[in-house]
């Protein structure tokens, strides 16, 4: 589904991603872990070109999205993204937060988008908040709405950038539950997270990044039980 070849990204002289090649298949739940500054968020943000790669190519469903002639808006409509800080639009109601993109991109009529928003909100148990503003919601509720907002575009792939890192501990569960449900429905997911329990339970593959490289990857049970690289062992001993 996504094919990354020789991807590099530097900010000024700072090389954040160093020649990464990776392939993500449909239906996979790829969990990326690693110390801060390892480039995992940058890698994720390159996948939908929120960061422009310095070198290398990214292909999504046969389209080379790093080509300057590629219409990136069309590609992004098929890739949902959830941010650490939710990034809901504070000037709009929840309903409008969810329906704005499907309606403006002509994916749905306003009535269809409304019905879709209600259906999705019902699923995450936030139907009563549909006419509220983001400022009236808790962090966990905001993040569930942010997931719904991305899902309303009916994406083929969901990118999660540390979706629970900014939440109070007691709100982490409700967001992870929504993500687990999504995983069980077969959504292709790429998740940057520090939630090792989630990685173990939901991930079909775990990537460990450090210093701009993917140092090690494996199926989660094997990865956590028998890490191979010394750097991975050090990291896991600190977080587990």
């Amino acid at each position, binding site marked *: 589904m996504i094919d990354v070849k020789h991807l590099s990204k530097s900010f000024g002289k700072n090389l954040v991603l160093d020649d990464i090649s990776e392939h993500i298949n449909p239906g996979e739940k790829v969990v990326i872990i690693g110390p801060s500054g390892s480039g995992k968020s940058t890698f994720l943000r390159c996948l939908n070109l929120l960061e*422009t790669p310095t070198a290398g190519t990214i292909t999504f469903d046969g389209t080379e999205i790093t080509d300057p002639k590629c219409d990136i808006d069309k590609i992004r409509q098929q890739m949902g993204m959830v941010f650490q800080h939710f990034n809901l*639009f504070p*000037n709009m109601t929840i309903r409008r937060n969810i329906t704005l993109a499907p309606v403006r991109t002509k994916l749905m009529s306003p009535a269809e988008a409304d019905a879709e928003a209600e259906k999705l909100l019902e699923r995450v148990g936030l139907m009563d908040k549909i006419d509220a503003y983001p*400022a009236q919601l808790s962090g966990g509720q905001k993040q569930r709405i942010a997931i719904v907002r991305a899902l309303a575009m009916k994406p083929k792939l969901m990118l999660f950038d540390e979706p629970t890192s900014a939440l109070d501990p007691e709100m982490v569960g409700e967001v992870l539950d929504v993500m687990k449900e999504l995983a069980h429905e077969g959504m292709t997911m790429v998740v940057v997270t520090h939630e090792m329990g989630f990685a173990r339970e939901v991930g079909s593959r775990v990537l460990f990044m450090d210093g701009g490289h993917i140092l090690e990857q494996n199926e989660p049970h094997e990865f956590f039980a028998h890490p191979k690289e010394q750097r991975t062992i050090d990291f896991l001993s600190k977080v587990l």
Partner: protein
Amino acid sequence: MDPTALYESFKALEDPGFWQEAYMKFYNAWFYEDRWVTYFQGLLTTVEVTVIALILGVILGVVVATIRTAHDQQRLGRRNPVLGVVNLFCKIYVTVIRGTPMMVQLMIMGFVIFKSSRNFTMVGALSLGINSGAYVAEIIRGGLMSLDPGQSEAGRSLGLGYLDTMRFIVIPQAFKAILPSLGNEFITLLKDTSLISVIAGKEIVYFAKSIVTKTYEAMYPYVITAIMYLILVLIFSWLQGKLERRLRQSDRR
């Protein structure tokens, strides 16, 4: 009592007291030959010039800010060369206007560029508008830049285009943020209209000056001028405060 009769009775006094003297000076600055009418003529011009300059300044400011922001937010490797050239002109415009005094700009406009024009008031309005545009552009650009980049990233990640993201997400939020500085700029503009008297624009200061040259008495005409400006600014601040409160309500529903 009729002001003129009162003036006459004071004038007849051999040795008028302090308050009687003060009244006679005020009479000369305000009532004599219906001079108060000219202040209001000037006030009308001031409001007129402010409105014209404001509209011009906002249009110029929005255009320049849009060009500058669009230029700065281009994706790497997809730079538009035309935008680069236009952006350079906008940068020069902002630099020159902000780097030179308002009064010098007025004099250059009035005595050099529009040397043969007799419509001093319009030349003044034009200069003020051009001046204000540069400041408004920087205020708007600052507002657009200060918004959390996550907001436009969220919009773009949903597949919305640059223009839709600006229109629905960035601009409505930026507008609320820049309103206080914009109001400040408009108050400055309103007061700067007093400068157009140097190129013979007929606003309040122009008439106050002409009264001073007739009466040789400076205090009352200039204090009256100051009070008129103050009242205009107070009215404007009040309107601005009302608008701000209304916009803020949406944050705490």
